[in-house]
């Protein structure tokens, strides 16, 4: 594929800190190579802004290969842009045509306060992880290999859930700002494995309760799955719902029991 250069117009959300009202600013990105990634295009625009003595656009990125979950842009009203199963960093300018108008906004939710411009704080998702996204293991000498047998189906399904990179696209895409897809992925990649069983019912209850402290409620639109760069399945949300009510039954305090 030969390299071509395109000119595009950007409408970028600029917000100088969390208390600022924020507004759109329009930039012309000229002679952008179709081989460059979306983030490289923003880098080029930022270089031009710096050269002109203006404040560059703040946006987040890290690995730029779709595995860290740092990049977070709402591109033309779609989290991570129009392509399915891709993070913003994997989106290339060849997806766009010469003369296109692209609107770039931050991920939005009450619990995603804007730090600056396109960078939002996703610390609320860390809170959910802290509530139970781990397993307790004895940290002595290394355990023997293959000591714990894992059925193939369980391993496959757990790996599907473990693909979640915690980018927050599900929350951004959800009209209710619900974090169900993220939380269910984090719960299920442990709940499906033998190593996660001892804390299974405590985990689902505490992670869901923490999720509900910060995020909205699921109405099963399915927007999160479409936005997810890792294509986490909606099935995990159903598994979480099932385990949550089961946990309420299992964790109920019987009469006469303390604590």
């Amino acid at each position: 594929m030969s390299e071509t250069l395109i000119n595009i117009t950007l409408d970028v959300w600029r917000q100088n800190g969390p208390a600022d009202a924020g507004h759109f600013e329009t930039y012309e990105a000229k002679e952008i190579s179709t081989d460059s990634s979306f983030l490289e295009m923003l880098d080029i625009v930022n270089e031009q802004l710096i050269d002109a003595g203006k404040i560059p656009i703040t946006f987040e990125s890290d690995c730029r290969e779709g595995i860290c979950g740092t990049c977070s842009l709402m591109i033309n009203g779609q989290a991570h842009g129009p392509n399915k199963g891709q993070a913003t960093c994997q989106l290339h300018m060849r997806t766009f045509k010469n003369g296109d108008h692209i609107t770039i906004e931050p991920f939005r939710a009450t619990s995603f306060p804007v730090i600056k411009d396109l960078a939002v704080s996703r610390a609320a998702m860390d809170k959910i992880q802290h509530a139970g996204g781990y397993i307790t293991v004895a940290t002595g000498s290394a355990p023997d290999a293959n000591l714990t047998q894992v059925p193939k189906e369980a391993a496959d399904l757990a790996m599907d859930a473990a693909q979640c990179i915690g980018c927050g696209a599900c929350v951004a895409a959800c009209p209710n700002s619900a974090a169900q897809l993220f939380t269910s992925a984090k719960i299920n990649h442990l709940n499906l494995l033998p190593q996660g069983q001892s804390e299974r019912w405590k985990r689902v209850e505490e992670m869901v309760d923490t999720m509900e402290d910060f995020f909205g409620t699921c109405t099963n639109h399915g927007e999160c799955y479409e936005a997810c760069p890792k294509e986490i399945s909606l099935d995990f949300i159903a598994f979480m719902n099932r385990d949550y009510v089961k946990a309420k039954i299992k964790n109920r305090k019987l009469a006469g029991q303390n604590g």
Partner: protein
Amino acid sequence: MAQTLPNAGSDFRDPQPIRTRKKALPFPLNIWQSAIGRKWVMALTGVGLLGFVLAHMIGNFHVFEGAVGMHEYAELLRELGGGIIPRTWLLWVLRFGLIAMFGLHIAAAYTTKEISRHASDKAGYIGGEKSYPGGRDYVAANYASRTMRWTGPIILFYLIFHLADLTWGFIPSTDYVRGDPYGNLANSLGNLPVAIIYIIANGALALHIFHGAWSLFQSLGLNNPKYNQARRGLAAGLAGVILIGNLSFPILSQTGVIDQSKNPCAAETTEEGAVACFEALIHEEEGE
């Protein structure tokens, strides 16, 4: 990250909850305290209400047997319990169950909607409903799922109208006669504006069921990759059957298939008169 964010103090690392957690109530009330639990209640009451809608529709097909058949069906409902339970008692138990399911369904819907509003209303300090001023692009959410919070209230208002029309007889323009369900239905739905209300409301009901009957499987966690494909078809089928079945009443009333002229007791204006007229007709048939 810290060096690029000079003013990002502890605020960002310690996000504020959108709602305060209350003391846990004893099981099973603690299920209601969580949004997932409420969605579970919404799904279960939805199943119950769906069962009612189906039973109500199938029962109303007696209208095609004529005025006497409709009267016999109405009497059968009052006699539910086979003579062991006193007349109309079981019907009232069912009615109270229905009212409770409606109440829980609406309460769960309203409160979870409020939680979602709080989760979205400070999104990016825009204020109001969550919005992307650059335009929102729905990919998966269909028309039915996005209009649940509108079709729901439409069904509620329609239900109040429907009860006022055919159960309480509050609508003055129709000559309501208690004890003559066929005549009341024919009179009411023969009226074009009323028929239009019924058609619009049943369209809303079908849309509500189209999303609800699929969504409830997810909310209850009834998910098996083997059968997941069937869920959308089941929801669409249920919505379609209910739409066609329920629309048959206003449409056939308008076209004259259901009409007061076919009601042998149309002249009666009191409950006693109507009931006596129908009973006499039934006795006549049995006498032959």
